[in-house]
């Protein structure tokens, strides 16, 4: 279809992605979190997928020029990896807590101040959990979209 939507998506796409990432990062003390970030990223990819089509997504996106694996088109394989990684990160976050001697999945935030330019930012290890959730949602929903999309 016509060029206008294509260019508009090309401009809007990073904006949506940035909002999603913004929501992810400010998830801790502003309403955000893994879910919404994941779902929004999926919406962004769905947009690209709807406007430019899957093949365009495969080429320009990732240089993934495979034939489709048995589960469906090519990039599904690494969507699967994405959500497998997400699960691993989330569970890993938990296991790390076990290794530090506390019971499973206990988050702690650590404040680092007296860093040179930005004083006192707190980075919570709950963020790791958010990241896990984010990756799982992205991987899962993208897989669903792609698989459902191309038959």
């Amino acid at each position, binding site marked *: 279809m016509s060029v206008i939507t294509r260019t508009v998506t090309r401009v809007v796409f990073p904006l949506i992605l940035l909002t999603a990432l913004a929501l992810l990062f400010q998830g801790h003390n502003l309403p955000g979190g893994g879910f919404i970030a994941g779902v929004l990223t999926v919406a962004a990819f769905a947009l690209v997928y709807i406007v430019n089509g899957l093949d365009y997504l495969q080429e320009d996106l990732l240089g993934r020029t495979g034939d489709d694996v048995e589960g469906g088109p090519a990039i599904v394989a690494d969507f699967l990896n994405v959500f497998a990684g997400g699960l691993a990160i989330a569970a890993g976050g938990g296991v790390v807590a076990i290794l530090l001697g506390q019971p499973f999945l206990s988050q702690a935030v*650590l404040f680092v101040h007296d860093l040179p330019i930005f004083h006192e930012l707190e980075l919570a290890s*709950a963020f790791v959990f958010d990241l896990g959730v984010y990756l799982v949602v992205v991987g899962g929903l993208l897989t669903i979209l792609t698989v459902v999309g191309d038959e």
Partner: protein
Amino acid sequence: GVALFAALALPFLGALVTPLVYRALGERTAWFAALVAFASFGLVASQFGTTGSVSIDWIPTLGVSLTLYLDGLSLLISLLASGVGVLVFTYSAGYMHGEPGQARYYGTLLAFMGSMLGVALAADLIALFVFWELTSITSFGLIGHYRESESSLYAARKSMLITVSGGLFMLVGFVLLAFVSGDALGSTTFTLIGTPDSMIANADAMRTALENAGLFVPVLVLVAIGAAAKSAQVPLHVWLPNAMEAPTPVSAFLHSATMVKAGVYLIGRMRPLLVGDEWMLLLGTLGLITMTVTALLAVGASDIKELLAYSTASHLGLITAGFGFANQLGAETGAFHILNHALFKATLFLVAGIIAHEAGTRAISELGGLRHDLPITGIITAIAALGMAGVPPFNGFYSKELLFESAYEVAHELGGLAWLFPAVAVFGSVFTFLYSIRFLWLFMGEKPAGLGEVHRPSLALLAPPVVLAGLAMIVGIDPQLAVDTIVQSAFGSAVAGEAHTMSIHLPTELTPAVAMSAITILTGIALSPFYDRLRDGVRRLTHGPFSADWYYDKAVYGLERASGLALPRIQTGQFRTYAAWMLGVTSLLALAGYLAAGVSIPAFSDLSITAPVVIVLLVAIVGAAAVARAPSHIAGVLTLSVLGFMVALFYVLSSAPDLALTQLVVETLVLVIFLLVLNRLPAFYGDTDRGTVARDALLAGGVGLTVTISVLVATAGSPDAIARFFVERAPVPAEHGSILADFGGGSNIVNVILVDFRAFDTMGEISVVAMAALGVLTLVAMRGRGESS
């Protein structure tokens, strides 16, 4: 001591090892089996005369322990089981020559013998029940030995159904007994006999406990059903004639010596515990009715094994009647007749096997004059059949005379219609005399032409009947010897209280019992020429709905047809009915729950809801209505997304921002997926007829109503929720160290809750998302290859 366990374990070990032995020895496993049987016979015999009980406790919490108790009665049964076992095994070495599946046959037969020994020796109720059910399972296997022929499958199923269900009733009786023993003996035990705090040891304490718990009659009835099912009493005798399908050694073993003895053994064992006038009423009548009815049926039988099967049932009726009578003589009859019946009936079955094996047919009508080519079997049959007929000086006579004595004595002191007992006893034993003479007649007269030439049986076939006939002969000649070796102690353990010595010898003066037996013999001889007409009479009687088979077939096959028809009505396959049922039942139950709790709808107070929320909800309702009446798929999807927007707006207005965000984006993705899926589906409109729409609307209303009520009552309460903890624990406190672990560390409480407090839920539902992805992937990937790949 340990010999009892060895005697018990040996047959089971033999059974386990039989397939291996069969692979090594081929057909000569029979001797191996005979050896195992003989070893356990020897072990039991070595315990002769001692009465001891050994126990390993199996389940102490339930008070169940595997205790083996040996006294007269169990010694008698176990000697019979293993002795006849030895003979049957040698017999089957000749009989089963060249038949397939012998490893299976000997294994089950040995297992059966072991479990029969278990039944005889088990001293506590559960162990008894264990071996009891094992006998019925192994007999199931044995009767279904010829597993190609339809009739033996039918017989196997029938016998299993009847005996196992009888066993279940019995189990209930045992449970009740154990329950009652709880307050009779202090602690609930299952041990029936042997230890001093067993049930039999203090029987009267048990009886009083049973009476005032009002459980005496149920226990009696349940146990009687169990025993009746096993010993083929009327009306549960139907499995017996069909069990003829089993090979003859099996039927000899099962029918004469062991399985049907299990029932009467149980009766004998329970006698000191439950004896009384209900016991006499129930078992006496049951026994005597069986005796006559099956004697009649035996007269009507058309082939020799069927005749012998019915006669087994009638003799067992006799034994039950004996045990049923509440006096010492009754117990004497039972104990003595157990021995006699085993001796002559096993011989007759083996003889029947020889006849069937050599002559080739089992039909009575074309057998005759077998004494020319089967001379020794002729003598054997003479001894056994006359014993069965109760002719002096053969062994059956003494026990039948005892029955007459006890029946007469019972009639003597009860008076009134207790006189039916001796009358029915005489009536029944006339027919017993008739069919046994008929069986003997097979050897007299000359051979009909139809019979091929019968060639003489091999030694393995001939030896066991000879041994049994010899034993029967000895018992016939001086019964006193048999009595004070074994029957005396057997009878001793079947009576409550003191047992006086029994002295059996040829009658030397005219007592009423002798008169009754004389009457029987004379009328028998008188009636024997009219045998054929009697037989046809009996056959006509049992054709229609009088044969008990009819009831059984009606019950089983009727049930099958009924369920074949009824089920499609319930499991229609229509998803609508399922959902309707489910939602209907849930809403009904929920409403019942509310009503039962007497929930009160709170009074109608102010509506503290802001205006835009009302309008948004109005739009949501309109959207939902539009979805219900959407003309096309696309319209439905669009209104659905409008509904989604409205719901998201509702979240925004009720100040739940990230909820709104998620709901919105999820809504869009659902829309996208709908669109992806929709273009593949045909645009289809179900034309709806009125009735279903009305019922659906009604059901939907019910569900809506339930939800409304639950919303109303649920929001009524305002408990002090645990949310305050989250509120003051989530954000970062003012002063803090570098690492703080017991504060959430984020001012967005929802996120902190999701990620920090109940991180496990988040784990759960990201795995749900992951699985959804996998599920979709699998569904699509598995498109081509279905089941078989």
